[in-house]
């Protein structure tokens, strides 16, 4: 069972015999009611799991994800946070961890010549479509053979160009608590104070 909002979590708890603690029937996870009305997804095999949920649903619709003390190194924990936190992706690269939000932005487009077909739109192919030993193929061969640039490029679909940009912009995350709403970070916009400081121009020194 995957729950992604507070209401879904509350309904799932209500449907169980124990209204404060119910299994999610997904890789051993449990849903636990916490103090203050919050509901947490706990991973039972972690130390102090019942009091340290990795995903917490708040009554105001926000979700807190936490994976401190090296928990992010666990592939299962990353997968649980991605599922229950409604994230687009959570992955590790070069020993750092990155999250991709639900409404992620993308990097600029980078249209380049297709790296597979070198811009020709065609790739080398294997011709074997003919009646064996009875009639030659369209190339005049009676045995299977390579055909230079014999089929449409499967990477660029014959266009000869491809967008090598437009990747989702990921955010570096160290596992400290993050507030999300609908899979997006809460309060991620700069405040007016931060904008004012960003707009400040260094006076010209003599």
């Amino acid at each position: 069972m995957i729950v992604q909002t507070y209401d879904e979590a509350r309904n799932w708890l209500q449907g169980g015999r124990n209204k404060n603690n119910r299994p999610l029937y997904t890789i051993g996870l449990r849903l636990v009611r916490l103090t203050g009305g919050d509901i947490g997804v706990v991973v039972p095999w972690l130390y102090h799991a019942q009091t340290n949920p990795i995903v917490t649903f708040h009554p105001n619709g926000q979700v807190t994800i936490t994976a401190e003390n090296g928990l992010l190194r666990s592939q299962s924990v990353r997968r649980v946070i991605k599922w229950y936190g409604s994230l687009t992706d959570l992955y590790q690269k070069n020993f750092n961890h990155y999250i991709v939000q639900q409404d992620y932005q993308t990097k600029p487009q980078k249209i380049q010549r297709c790296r597979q077909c070198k811009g020709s739109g065609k790739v080398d192919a294997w011709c074997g479509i003919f009646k064996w030993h009875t009639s030659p193929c369209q190339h005049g061969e009676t045995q299977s053979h390579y055909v230079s640039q014999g089929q449409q490029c499967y990477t660029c679909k014959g266009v000869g160009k491809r967008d090598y940009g437009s990747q989702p912009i990921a955010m570096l995350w160290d596992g400290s608590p993050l507030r999300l709403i609908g899979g997006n970070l809460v309060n991620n916009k700069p405040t007016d104070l931060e904008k004012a400081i960003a707009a400040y121009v260094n006076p010209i020194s003599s």
Partner: protein
Amino acid sequence: MSTQYQVDYDPTIVFNTTDLISSMYNIVSDFQMDSAENIVDAFVTEFQFEPESIPNRFIDLSGSSKAFREAVTARLLERVETLEDREKLLNMVTRWVASSTDNSSNLRIFSEYAAAITFALEHTDVAVKIIKRNKPEAVSRSIWSIVDAIKKGMPGVMYQGYVLSNKPLALTQFEGEKHQYAHWF
């Protein structure tokens, strides 16, 4: 002069968490009804009554609401009138940072207050030390903006002016979003 402010982790510093909030300001039951200005005032007044404790939910609120943090920072700076006040405030925020273990979420939240206040009160070296205690990947946007201000050579007084002039706006924003946190009280 700044060497007296230690920001490295000191396990002997432990803050108590007091129940919100002193009898003078009973916002426990009236959180939604009370104005944002009164709520911020109540938190700031609490520090004067109990300098060795942190009001309950102060860290949660600061971590969730940037407007609350900016309003509290401005209110704390507003209250500085004498040199003694200044010393007390600097001591308090640096002790907050010193009480937090490395890589903890408390460190990030306290650093936001402490870096802003120490920089605004012209203790840039202490602000830099506080910022350096945070890992680059865990640093929030507000700390980056202080780094930006330091890099641009902005005087602390000017930063203080920005913070103080931003207070009404921060209070208005907090007024608009405080209903989200009412369930904590």
